[in-house]
């Protein structure tokens, strides 16, 4: 593949953004769908190019394609910063994920965003986002990556706050931006410290420095932890996970693309991209694994009790991102990225399914208002169940394969974390099927009452109905991918592509669930979770209320999200930051800075007030002083000779 085409992958959505933002939005009415078609065409071409890129990377030696750099900033004899792309197996896989999910989401949005006054703005931001995300995965230096890293953050801000007239959406956008900035600060410090210590931003050079041992010890550990801080912010890892559930204020396709499949996976991608740095620092790698495993179970526990379908999915996303981190921390790039790859498809599917459900039931996301939708929207139901099964890790869907690998590698290197991960499998299966049973089974409970005020319902509220084909087709495609994407690694092909591992026979591994204990255990745990959900919400053998009462303290703890929002809001923001830190700074400003300025002025006033008494207005006194002065000068001149 000629390298110009690699540049094109990243430039096409940029062109589409420029066309929409500068030529279409000002001049074309928002009824027109042309912006959507342009975006779809641009991203569709990107997808074709990405497949081509994947094929050529597979064929290339070392799975790498060299792309010449462009010099960007040149300071003679000091700094040369180049603008460059790299295309290797990791990039190729990410390109595929981003372009496929983005294309599906753009097609889906054609129906979902129909008639919204911000239609062009939506597609402009989506194009910009896709461009930034593709740039992020293609960038060959940490500096360039950081630029795109911030750009995806900006697009996330714009799209979460898409309906900015709603205060909750505006607040959520701010929260997302500020919380991720906290992590980005660590990332920036890590980049600068790496540059200070090695003199390069180039990722491959950093890799070879880490591998050769030139970059080691505390420097490496802190740099890796700084990078992980950035990754934790973007990928919503504990303790910076609080922004992601609130980010659900954005339009649902945005949640599917940005807050499920791609942008939140950027953190995982970043760790994978700089993996040699982590690999050579045991502390950093353990940090990644522990934070990942803890986040996985922590977020899953909150997902158990949420009533808003998008929030269930949001917590599930956080939990799965924790899983990916755990996979990276214990098993390496291939394991973590493989889960990312599979997760992107079925999680995007689930979000789009949730959007479809909400579309049907009048714009609400509250599962308690849904129910019984299985009969009226069979396509959404089937695809949603496929997504849930895949997420729960049921054989032979894609989620099973990647989750199984994570469990296997965790059992080898971190046995304690394995148990956390296994409990998470149970929780995941339970909350997903809780959502399925509440939403799709039972009786229809009426949907949103103020359907016409709801933003997601565009054609009035005439009872639940199946979504239009434009929305269903992406669901079906994603469901298909949600089933088969995991099969890539059944033969070990994905591991080999990523640079380590061996190949197996397809059928030997495909049915390993029958012959090996670990896959069987994880499958049984997942099925147990599904069964419990069935027992509680479908068959009603167990009353959810009774169980809720039995574990009341836990229920409250989960549903109040461990009071972390309150902790951050009331303690950290209001007391630590505003009162102590900013209060202290304000005191310094008032007393030290203003004090100095006012002190100089007051000193001048006070001395003037003291000295002006010399100005008596008595001419003779002035004369006396003049006389004394002249006398003094004469004496001095006489004495000095």
């Amino acid at each position: 593949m000629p390298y110009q085409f690699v540049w094109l992958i990243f430039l096409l959505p940029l062109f589409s953004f420029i066309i929409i933002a500068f030529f279409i939005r000002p001049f074309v009415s928002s009824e027109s769908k042309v912006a959507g078609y342009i975006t779809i065409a641009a991203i569709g071409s990107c997808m074709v190019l990405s497949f081509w890129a994947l094929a050529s990377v597979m064929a290339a030696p070392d799975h790498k394609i060299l792309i010449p750099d462009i010099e960007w900033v040149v300071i003679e004899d000091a700094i040369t910063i180049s603008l460059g792309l790299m295309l290797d197996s990791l990039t190729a896989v990410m390109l595929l994920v981003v372009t496929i999910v983005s294309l599906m989401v753009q097609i889906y949005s054609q129906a979902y965003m129909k008639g919204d006054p911000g239609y062009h703005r939506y597609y402009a931001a989506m194009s910009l986002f896709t461009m930034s995300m593709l740039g992020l995965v293609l960038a060959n230096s940490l500096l360039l990556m950081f630029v795109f890293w911030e750009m995806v953050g900006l697009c996330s801000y714009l799209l979460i706050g898409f309906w900015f007239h709603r205060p909750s959406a505006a607040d959520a956008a701010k929260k997302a931006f500020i919380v991720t900035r906290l992590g980005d600060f660590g990332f920036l410090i890590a980049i600068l410290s790496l540059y200070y210590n090695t003199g390069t931003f180039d990722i491959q050079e950093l890799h070879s420095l880490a591998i050769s041992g030139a970059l080691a010890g505390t420097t490496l550990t802190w740099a890796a932890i700084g990078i992980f801080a950035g990754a934790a912010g973007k990928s919503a890892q504990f303790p910076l996970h609080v922004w992601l559930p609130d980010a659900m204020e954005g339009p649902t396709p945005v949640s599917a693309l940005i807050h499920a499949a791609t942008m939140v996976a950027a953190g995982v991608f970043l760790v994978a991209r700089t993996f040699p740095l982590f690999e050579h620092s045991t502390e950093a790698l353990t940090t990644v694994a522990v934070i990942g495993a803890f986040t996985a179970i922590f977020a899953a526990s909150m997902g158990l009790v949420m009533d808003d379908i998008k929030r269930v999915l949001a917590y599930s996303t956080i939990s799965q991102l924790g899983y990916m981190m755990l996979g990276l921390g214990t098993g390496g790039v291939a394991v973590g990225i493989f889960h990312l790859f599979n997760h992107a498809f079925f999680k995007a599917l689930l979000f789009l399914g949730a959007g479809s459900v909400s579309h049907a039931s009048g714009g609400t996301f509250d599962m308690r208002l849904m129910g019984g939708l299985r009969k009226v929207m069979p396509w959404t139901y089937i695809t949603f169940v496929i997504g849930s099964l895949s997420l729960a890790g049921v054989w032979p869907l894609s989620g099973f394969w990647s989750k199984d690998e994570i469990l296997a590698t965790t059992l080898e290197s971190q046995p304690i974390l394995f148990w956390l991960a296994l409990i998470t499998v149970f929780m995941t299966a339970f909350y997903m099927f809780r959502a399925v049973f509440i939403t799709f089974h039972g009786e229809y409970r009426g949907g949103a009452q103020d359907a016409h005020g709801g933003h997601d319902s565009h054609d009035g509220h005439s009872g639940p109905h199946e979504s239009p084909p434009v929305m269903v087709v992406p669901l079906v495609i994603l469901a298909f991918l949600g089933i088969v994407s995991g099969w890539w690694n059944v033969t070990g092909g994905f591991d080999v592509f990523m640079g380590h591992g061996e190949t197996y026979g397809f059928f030997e591994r495909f049915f390993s669930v029958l012959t090996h204990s670990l896959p069987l255990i994880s499958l049984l745990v997942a099925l147990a979770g599904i069964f419990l959900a069935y027992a509680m919400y479908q068959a009603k053998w167990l009353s959810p209320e009774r169980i809720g009462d039995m574990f009341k303290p836990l229920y409250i703890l989960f549903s109040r999200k461990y009071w972390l929002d309150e902790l951050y809001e009331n303690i950290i923001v209001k007391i630590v930051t505003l009162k102590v830190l900013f209060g202290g700074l304000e005191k310094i400003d008032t007393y030290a800075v203003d004090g100095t300025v006012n002190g100089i002025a007051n000193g001048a006033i006070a001395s003037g007030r003291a000295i002006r008494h010399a100005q008596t207005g008595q001419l003779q006194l002035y004369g006396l002083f003049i006389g004394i002065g002249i006398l003094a000068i004469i004496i001095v001149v006489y004495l000095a000779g």
Partner: protein
Amino acid sequence: MSIGLEHYIILSAVLFAIGLYGALSKRNAIVILMSIEIMLNAVNIAMVAFSRYIVPALLTGHIFAIFIIVVAAAEATVGLAIIIGIYRNRETIDASQINLMKW
């Protein structure tokens, strides 16, 4: 004892000091004006003496002295006019009362 330059200069210095003392210490504006006249004349004596003893062939000092006499006359005129003006406005010629320049 012959009268030399230093005697004139001492006389001049004594007169100048008396005039200065009067100008700085007296309250009455007219007395101050008179004191200033004394100082000017002290200077005149010094001028003429220097001229006579140091450059006898030239008349520079004399000319200067005559100029000073003329200027002093004019100054006395203007000074008295100002004093009359002040007296009309403030009913006093006490210099310590004339303190509008103070802060």
